[in-house]
């Protein structure tokens, strides 16, 4: 456990150093800031809650998640996140982790979909089960090589539509994902922007979500990351578990293939 933490710290520091090639003083100090944060990640608190939630019998059917199939067979959690999103035959749909969890809450635990997805993003003491579950499940893929296969036609299509979405400019500010994440060596304010159209940037970004966001004191999932990007792009509200959210996730996850997954991380 300790070694894992130290590794995470080293990788974070290395990432920060990579971004700050010019090594001017503000960048070096920010790298120090990030390194100090990595020494203790409150995402641990979410991981603990998530593990307990996974095993807890809940819902009208009084069932735990332990029969939930995340793609590697019922109950297999280890390494599952590194292969998501993927096509699930039982739903005939490409699903990311959170979409799949909502599916299991409905089919296994007997919740109505509206009830299962009432709180998808937590705020303070009103926590989201999705964030806790995602913290633990993704931690179980730490160190596993990203391997999103695109073996199914619907996975191909999700990738292709996600790519279109990535470059789609719209809204009053004309912003696309690519506006901020289409070139290397750029930053917004003092934050390095990963270039998601190149392998290194795509890998560094995707493998470090979910993350504990210190500015919010919350653990945030990839669904949240996308929703909040579009908020700042001045788009409408990206629906949780929507086809567009899954397509874009598929595009970004696939581009991270080959990198070791390394989340939950800790970020500004």
């Amino acid at each position: 456990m300790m070694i894992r933490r130290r590794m995470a710290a080293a990788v974070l520091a290395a990432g920060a150093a990579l971004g700050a090639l010019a090594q001017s003083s503000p960048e070096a100090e920010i790298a120090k800031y990030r390194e100090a944060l990595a020494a203790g990640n409150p995402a641990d608190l979410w991981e603990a809650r998530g593990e307990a939630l996974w095993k807890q019998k809940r819902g009208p059917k009084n069932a735990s998640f332990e029969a939930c199939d995340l793609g590697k067979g019922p109950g297999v959690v280890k390494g599952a996140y590194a292969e998501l999103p993927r096509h699930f035959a039982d739903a005939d749909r490409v699903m990311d982790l959170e979409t799949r969890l909502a599916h299991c809450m409905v089919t296994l635990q007997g919740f109505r979909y509206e009830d299962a997805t009432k709180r998808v993003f937590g705020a303070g003491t009103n926590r989201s089960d999705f964030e806790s579950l995602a913290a633990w499940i993704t931690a179980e893929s730490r160190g596993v090589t990203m391997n999103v296969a695109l073996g199914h036609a619907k996975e191909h299509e999700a990738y292709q539509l996600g790519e279109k979405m990535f470059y789609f400019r719209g809204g009053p500010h004309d912003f696309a994902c690519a506006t901020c994440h289409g070139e290397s060596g750029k930053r917004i304010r003092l934050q390095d922007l990963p270039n998601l159209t190149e392998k290194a940037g795509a890998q560094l970004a995707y493998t470090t979500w979910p993350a504990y966001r210190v500015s919010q004191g919350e653990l945030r999932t990839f669904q949240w990351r996308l929703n909040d990007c579009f908020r700042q792009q001045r788009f409408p509200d990206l629906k949780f578990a929507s086809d567009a959210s899954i397509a874009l996730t598929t595009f970004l996850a696939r581009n991270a293939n080959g990198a070791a997954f390394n989340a939950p991380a800790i970020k500004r």
Partner: protein
Amino acid sequence: MSDPMRIRAAERDGVVNVKVLMSHEMETGQRKDAAGKIVPAHFISKITATHQGKTVLSAQWGPAVSKNPFLEFNFKGGKKGDKVVVTWEDNKGETRTDETTIN
């Protein structure tokens, strides 16, 4: 009820390194909610860490300590297998105690 702390204690060359993460809002009492009402202060105000019944660290905090607080310190004399117990108390009188085994 509050969530358990995450405590890690590791011994090396006779020194025990302790890292604690606590689940707490640490409300400053200065923040307004969506309706514009002040959210009352709610924060951990006291912490005690003990080893074999002896206090190895105690602290008094104000609301300026960050949400989901982190604390790290080192003490001498602990052995692998010993217990480290941490207790916090907040300004509303709520307390929580958790322990871990030194490894």
